């Protein structure tokens, strides 16, 4: 769910002059390079007024001032990529779009409509190149190379996930967070015995429900494990004991009565609101949770988090979803679009994304907000990473097959055994019907 968001409520005046001059030096202000004209179009995933939008809008203003290139921005919101797809059949495509990795892939990359962003990666930023500012360790597991081996995406921020809690209410978790699944279940039991609701969940958002199973499968099989299972045309991969074990762990959560009352029958963000008001101790959610819930959280809530527990299979990857820019192949003003994409990696905007928009900037040296400290620390220390849905984006697979079945497991309607067998059959049927 593209709910990366933030809750900035102040608009910090931006020191245009100084930073602007600096940036001008490093981004080759010396006029328009070959192939660039004086404007380009950008369809943004942010809406007017969102904190990310404010940061990017400031960057746009600076960029225009320094390069003389006019940026025609449409603040379209999360539907921007859905609108992009039909436009790709025409000759008036936007020159720049942004979105999370998992949405850019189906919209642009799977159909080979994306441009290799070598120029953006090579653009000088803060004394180095934009490409080098994207930590190399992410790129080991996150594949952003197109068929020709060129990167199709220049990320500017990351989303991750974590199990969130209120450090004011549970200071002990700060010093001694559960690391393994058994620790985690023990914690849930303790909370339950203490009369608390252990876990909140908004069951109407199927993608959130599936995050448990996806993450557990990735814990058992490593990053890419789920994608491998989903690609199995016979569906038999679901019968792997490691997969069954992951499903059983979800079943354990459900049967154990750890989940908040009514999670099966509420409308987002009802349960998230309850969590933010101390009615449940923990919530497994994306890194956007603090900003999304800030307006209704009880006073004194101190956001803190620990990573999703490991299962003993030795895999402890962190979720790292790139959010960033891509350029359609048909773009008429690709060169300027790429320059702007690189421009957002300047420390100034990266810091603002971290502090004002409270997301995790892609640059490792950028500042982050206190709420993100836990997530940032885990990301910094991790050395393997996985994507939302483990990068699975086969046509209709998630929304028609996997998430629908997973809901039945997550709502306790079927057992883990039934689930894996159902998935095996359904997936075999799915692949039989897919074009080769």
């Amino acid at each position, binding site marked *: 769910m593209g709910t990366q968001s933030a809750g900035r409520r102040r608009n910090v005046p931006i020191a245009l002059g100084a930073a602007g001059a600096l940036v001008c030096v490093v981004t080759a202000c010396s006029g328009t390079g070959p192939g660039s004209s004086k404007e380009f179009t950008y369809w943004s995933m942010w809406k007017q007024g969102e904190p990310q939008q404010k940061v990017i809008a400031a960057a746009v203003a600076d960029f225009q001032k320094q390069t003389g290139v006019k940026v025609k921005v449409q603040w379209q919101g*999360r539907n921007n990529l859905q609108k992009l*797809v039909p436009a790709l059949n025409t000759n008036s495509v936007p020159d720049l779009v942004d979105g999370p990795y998992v949405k850019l892939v189906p919209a642009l990359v*799977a159909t080979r409509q994306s441009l290799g962003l070598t120029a953006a990666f090579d653009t000088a930023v803060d004394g180095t190149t934009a490409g080098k500012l994207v930590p190399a360790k992410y790129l080991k597991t996150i594949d952003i190379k197109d068929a020709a081996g060129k990167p199709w995406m220049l990320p500017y921020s990351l989303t991750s996930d974590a199990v969130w809690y209120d450090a004011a209410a549970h200071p002990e978790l700060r010093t001694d967070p559960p690391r393994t699944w058994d620790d985690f279940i023990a914690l849930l039991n303790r909370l339950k015995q203490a009369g608390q609701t252990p876990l909140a969940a908004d069951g109407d958002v199927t993608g959130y429900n599936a995050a448990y199973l996806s993450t557990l499968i990735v814990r058992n099989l490593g990053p890419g494990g789920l994608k491998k299972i989903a690609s199995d045309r016979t569906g038999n991969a679901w019968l792997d004991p490691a997969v069954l074990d992951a499903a059983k762990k979800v079943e354990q959560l459900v049967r154990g009565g750890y989940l908040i009352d009514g999670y*099966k029958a*509420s409308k987002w963000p*009802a349960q998230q609101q309850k969590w933010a008001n101390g009615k449940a101790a923990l919530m497994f959610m994306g890194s956007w949770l603090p900003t999304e819930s800030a307006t209704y959280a009880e006073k004194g809530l101190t956001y803190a988090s620990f990573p999703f527990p490991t299962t003993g299979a030795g895999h402890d990857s962190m979720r790292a979803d790139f959010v960033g820019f891509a350029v359609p192949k048909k773009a008429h003003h690709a060169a300027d679009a790429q320059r702007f994409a690189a421009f957002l990696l300047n420390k100034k905007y990266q810091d603002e994304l971290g502090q004002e928009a409270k997301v995790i900037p892609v640059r490792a040296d950028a500042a982050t907000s206190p709420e993100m400290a836990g997530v940032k620390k885990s990301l910094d220390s991790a050395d393997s990473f996985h994507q939302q849905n483990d990068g699975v984006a*086969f*046509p*209709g697979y998630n929304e028609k097959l996997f998430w629908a079945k997973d809901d039945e497991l997550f709502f306790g309607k079927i057992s883990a055994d039934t689930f894996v067998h159902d998935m095996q059959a359904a997936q075999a049927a799915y692949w039989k*019907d897919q074009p080769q």
Partner: protein
Amino acid sequence: MIRPAEIRPATAGPPDPAPAAERRPGPEPAPRGGTLARQRRRLFIPFVGPALLLYSVLFIAPIGAAVWISLHNWAGSGPMTWAGLRNYTRLFHDDLFTQSLRNTLELLFVVGAAVFAISFALTLILRDMAGRKAVRAVIFFPHLVNALVYGVLVGFLFNPDGLANSLLAHLGIHSPPQWLAQDNLFPLIMVTMTWMTTGYFTTILMAGVDRIPVSYYEDCALAGAGPLQRLRYVILPLTWDVFGVCAVLWTISSVKIFEIVWIFGGSSGNGIPPTKTWTSAVYTYATAFSGDSVPSYGAATASAILSLLLVTVLVVLLRRLMRREAVEF
């Protein structure tokens, strides 16, 4: 099948409330009509031309293109590969598609029946109720409000801590139903649809009923007909053609039902609604525009073409069924 025409009350001659409507199928009266018809035929280009052109360009041509797309595998951009009828055969053994189609038909028939029954009952009740105009105005208004508003409000009403449950708790009911559970979501959508559309159709039907001259009821009363007989022999037959238009209106709008399902499930339109609530229109949209996986426009258009065929059959059947049932007066 049904020929209620004979029931025209025998006592009073038919009063003339509106220009006498006459249906005269078949050729024009020969001598003068002939020239008229010939002259009129020449107006084909100026009269029908613009409509035909706009309709063909903006409607028929895209449908043709859609049929073409449905025979291919296509991700919405990039290369198309020929798939023949495979997109269609695939749909027939996709349980989700059949279920979505079933949901559409359920909306069409169940909600349709409810809307018409309630509208009709309301029409009869309102006919001589104090404040009828005000009531009509109030119940019509929900139809003008965007479905999105209901999508937002439904959470507040039916969440576990929502308004409905807190009201029930005051009445002593402490284990209320799980309103928003996936299994209950579709019925809830159906109720909301009924809520939204009842006023609209009531207004239309009321006008139909209002057109019936009062003298007919007096004749009925003289003839000793009870309320039900009056309904059966006067009101229904005389509003039959209004019903016909309403039925077509409802049929074509119900197969397009999309927004309300989209926003009821899945966090007010931010996510994808649970598959249990999908209609065939949602199926089409999600297949092409879900954003969570590679779009397959071939399959999406194929499913849309199938629903198109379904509706065409229904509309043709409806017109057959409703034809000649109108009563002239």
